[in-house]
Each structure stands twice: as C-alpha cells, then as structure tokens.
C-alpha cells in the first residue's frame, strides 16, 4: 500500500461513523439516487450514480468496521482500496458531484449520500487525489486569504469606491458591532452591489455592523476539497475575528457552501459551540422584515422566479425566508416545478465551479436548470448565491438564453424605502 493510499484509508477510517455504517448497510442498489442526480440525468451515464461514487469509502467501511468484513479481509476476500481506484474515482467524487444533497432527500432507505461524499473527500485529498483547481483555491485561501486571490487591498479599494459613490461609511473592525458581515470573493470581484446593498439596508434598519479586515472572506475551500484541516483554519479566522470584535451575529453572505461551512460545520471543525450566532443574510433580512426594520416600496414588474441555492435551502434550512422576502418586492413571482428542498442544483456547487476539467460537465448539468427555466419562462431569475449566479449566467450564455440574474439582497436594497418616505 502506497503512502497515499494509506493516508486515504486512514482518513476514511477517521470519518466513518455509525450513520455511515447504517447507510452502507442499508443500500439496496435501487438506483433511485441516480434519478435525483443531475449529473446522471443530463449525461445518462450510470457511473454518475451517487452511491457508486462512494465505492472507496464503502470498501473501507466493510473491511474495517464490520465483523464479517474484517473476517473476510483476513482471508483476503474483501476488495481493497488502491491508488488506481482513488485516481479513477477523482472525477466521480469531485467533478460530477456538486454536493447538492438531492440524492440524500430521495433515497428510500434514507442514506445521506452527500454527507458521505463530504467524508470521502477527506480521504481523497489526504491521498492527493483532488482536482488542481480546488487545490489552488485552497492554497490561495490559506496563503492570501481568499480562494480567488482577493487581497485586503482589493476589499479596501472597493470600500473606497463605495464610500465615494454613496457617501456612506463602511464600518471596518468596529468592536462591539452587532453583526459581522462576511463576503465571498465573487461578491468582492464580480458583484460589488452586494456590499452596497448591505450598507443601505443595515443603515435603514439601524443595525450596527462591521467588516473584519482579517476575516472578510466567507468561502471555505477546505469544505469543498474535503480537507477539515484547511477548513478549520479558515473558519478559525472568522471565529477569532468575531470573538475579538465581540459581535453577536456573524452573517454568511449570498454564497451556498460558506453558510454550510460556518453554520453547520464550523462549530464541529473547531470542536466547540460558537459564542455568537451564525446566520445567513436572508435569515437576518427576514428578521428585519418581521421586526419592521426592513421596509420596501415598489415592485419588480417582471415575471420572476427564484433559484434555490442547495447549501442554503436544502442543506441549510433557509427555505421560507427568501420567499417571504421576495413577496415584498415581486408581484409576478412564479415557482419552478421542483423548488425549495427539492430544487435542482445549478450544476456548479460543491467546488465544481473551480474544477477546470469539469467545465463541460457542469454546463451539461446546467441543462437540468434550463429545462426548469424553459418551463416557467421567467423574465428575471433571482438567486441568493454568487456561485450559482455565475454558473447560471454562464450556462444561459452557452445555451443562448437571455434572462438577467439578480441577487435577492441587492433587489431588496433597490426597493428600500428611502429614509424620508419611511418616516412618512
């Protein structure tokens, strides 16, 4: 066994727990997970069947964590994990899985297949069998502070532009602020309107907030590549900043996996509960709405639909909040056929967008979303994840569609009641 394989097997052994064992014990090869996977549905290739992507992990479970498997491996009957196997599975584990969790929702025996993919990636990366794109992103995240290489300098430049344009002050490193606002690299680079929207809404709501100069980045490449060691370091930066600035709530931005990384994995990565709340921006905005601190005027006249970002909705639990917020600003809102917890992924989540080799595959996977869009024919497509947004735009461009994609937070900011009208 090569050192790589040994590390992979060791990582698999660390990851497998009672739930993994129950899942593998229960699979009957019914194939229904394939019917929930857009990579299979759009390619028709059975190798993309979700449960099949877990073969390496399954082998370690069987030979190490079942009595009968242990006995079988003693006499050499248990199939082994090899370096070739891991190499072959790289595409299945990374390129063709956006960790959207739809398979986990439909599996009749209740297997959380996506959760197991997350575990399997720990072993894949331990053996080095991860896509270069994700390795690079992780490296930049650790060394520069952002997977896209966005530096503090770039953030400051954006803040400067914003302050100059709007006359507002963007709080940075303000101790005692209620909210610590995080951003994703994409928002800093491609969608500066997010930060402006936050500034305006929070001002209108009278909420104190701040950005941390040493923890502005919300994304977590460690989660995507499956390296808890890296993910922990990245989460720790946010936790350290939040604790230093004594904020009550840390807000994850319009980004899918960042929310999972912070809210659901974060405390477990650092091994203790957070002393602050971790919330998604939509949750905070919905609280503002409920408290009457978020008031809007006017409506989007266009026929509008909402693309649910998987990590926020299905795997995050923020399902009703976006809909209540959309109702504030949209008159002609139409749901796509499968929505909410049963939505279809854009095709580029879970790190797929950062994998160059997966470029064609993710655009094929987008066809699922295209069919959904073709069915409701919206004039505008709203979402709440920068990564989804880029994939949707790229996918539509490739397939000759022309539907503007907008973010929910910025749309709310556009319809924000001006202070004058709010008072009146």
């Amino acid at each position, binding site marked *: 066994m090569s050192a790589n394989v040994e590390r992979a097997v060791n990582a698999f052994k660390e990851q497998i727990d009672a739930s993994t064992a129950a899942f593998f014990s229960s699979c009957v090869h019914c*194939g229904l997970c394939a019917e929930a996977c857009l990579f299979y549905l759009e390619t028709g290739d059975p190798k993309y069947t979700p449960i099949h992507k877990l073969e390496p992990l399954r082998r370690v479970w069987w030979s190490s*964590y079942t009595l009968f498997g242990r006995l079988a491996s003693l006499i050499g009957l248990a199939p082994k994990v090899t370096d070739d196997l891991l190499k072959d599975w790289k595409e299945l584990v990374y390129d063709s899985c956006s960790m959207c969790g739809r398979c986990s929702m439909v599996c009749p025996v209740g297997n959380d297949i996506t959760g197991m993919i997350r575990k399997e990636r720990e072993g894949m990366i331990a053996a080095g069998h991860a896509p270069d794109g994700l390795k690079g992103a992780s490296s930049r995240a650790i060394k520069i502070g952002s997977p896209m290489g966005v530096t503090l300098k770039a953030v400051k430049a954006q803040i400067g532009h914003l302050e100059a344009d709007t006359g507002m002050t963007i709080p940075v490193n303000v101790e005692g602020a209620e909210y610590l606002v995080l951003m994703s690299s994409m928002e800093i680079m491609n969608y500066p309107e997010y930060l402006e929207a936050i500034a305006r809404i929070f001002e209108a709501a009278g909420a104190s907030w701040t950005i941390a100069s040493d923890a502005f980045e919300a994304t977590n490449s460690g989660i995507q590549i499956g390296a808890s060691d890296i993910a922990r370091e990245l989460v720790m930066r946010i936790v350290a900043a939040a604790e230093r600035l004594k904020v009550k709530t840390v807000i994850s931005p319009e980004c899918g996996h960042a929310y999972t990384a912070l809210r659901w994995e974060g405390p*477990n990565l650092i091994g203790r*509960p957070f002393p602050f709340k971790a919330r998604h921006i939509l949750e905070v905005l919905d609280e503002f709405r409920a408290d009457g601190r978020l008031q809007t005027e006017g409506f989007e006249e266009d026929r509008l639909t909402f693309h649910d970002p998987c990590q926020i909705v299905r795997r995050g639990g923020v399902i009703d909040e976006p809909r209540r917020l959309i109702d504030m600003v949209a008159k002609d809102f139409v749901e796509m056929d499968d929505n909410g917890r049963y939505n279809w992924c854009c095709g580029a989540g879970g790190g797929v967008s950062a994998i160059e080799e997966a470029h064609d595959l993710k655009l094929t996977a987008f066809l699922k979303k295209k069919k959904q869009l073709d069915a409701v024919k919206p004039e505008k497509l709203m979402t709440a994840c920068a990564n989804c947004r880029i994939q949707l735009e790229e996918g539509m461009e490739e397939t000759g569609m022309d539907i503007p994609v907008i973010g929910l937070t910025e749309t709310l900011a556009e319809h924000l009641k001006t202070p004058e009208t709010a008072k009146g």
Partner: protein
Amino acid sequence: MTAVDFLAFTRGPLFDVALIIFIAGLAIRFVEILVLGRRRDFSEPRRGGFGSGLRTMFSRTLPETGTMKRAPTTVVAGWVFHIGFLVTLLLFVPHIEMFQAVLGFGWPGLPTPIIDFAGILAMVAMVVVLINRLRNPVMRFLSGFGDYLPWLLTFLPLITGWLVFHRLLLPYPAMLGLHILSVELLMILFPFTKLMHTFTAFLARYYTGAAFGRKGVQS
C-alpha cells in the same frame, strides 16, 4: 430420508441453527453500527433532530413525486413487492403462530385468499423488479452477486410457500419442508447481505432525518 423426516429436520434442528445465525447476526450488525457512535454536533440546531428523525423513518416510505415520475417501475414494483411480502409474511396465520413461538406474542391474521393474492402480487412484483434490474442501465450497472442472491433468497420462500398453500408440485410435507428450508436459507444469509436494510434502513432514515431536521429541513 422421507419427506416427513425432512420436514421434521427443517422444523427442528435446522430452524434452530438458522434462528441462531439470524438473530445473532442481526444483533452483531446492529450493535456494531451503534457502538461506532457519532461525534457530538456543536452546531446550533434550528430545531430538535429527534422528532424529524422519527418522522423520516416513516416518511421515506413514500417517494417524492419527481422520483415517482422518473422511475415509476422501481417505485411501484418495489412498493407492491414490499406490501405483498410483508402481508404474506406477517398476516398469514401459520406464520403468526411461528412468530408467537419465537417472540412470545402474536397478532390477528387475514383470510387465506387475501394472503394468496398478496403472495402472488409480491411474486409478480419481484419478477418485474428483476426485469427492471436487468434492463435499467443504472441498476444493471450497480448490480452484482450481492443483489441477485438476495432476490433469489426472497423469491424462494414466496414461490415454495405458494406451492405449499396450493398443494402443487410435491406432497405437502415435502413442499412445506422445502418452504421452511428456503426460509432458513434466507435467515442464515440475511445478516451477510443487503437484506439487512430491512432493519438498518430505519436507522439510516433516522440519522438522515435527524441531521436534516436540526437544520430545519423536513426530509
């Protein structure tokens, strides 16, 4: 060995052996899963996972509508098989007598024509399931010995049971002996095959239901 000797053997010593392997095997596999444990979850839950877990243990029995549309054969045949099989297994009076002997308690049964019908449904569904497995690209791709063996192990008790009930092919004692033998084969191999899902699926559903539930997602 006469048919009656054979029947006495299958009702006697062989059943004892099969029962030991079945029960001990089940216990081993169940306990070794539970003992493996899970790490404490430090994340702040949106709501308790326990109730959601319990709910998912049952809710996953019904398919999501999209799955039903995309894979109707798998869903419907699977459903019909499970219902037919469980009715036959659990509500046929002679079977209940057997359960009573092992468990110490019984329950009311159904008239035999209903059991007969349920058994036929289960068998027809099993044939459909098998054809589906051979034709569906995903299922064919996933399937191996570990999938076809349990099919056979499940089908044999159904067909032999039906033949006993209708007194076909062989005299009653011989056929009943074969039926019991086929059940014993099923029991003996049960803990070593995917047939374990009969019990672990509820554990799996609980874990997933609880994990989704604490995030606020009903699964």
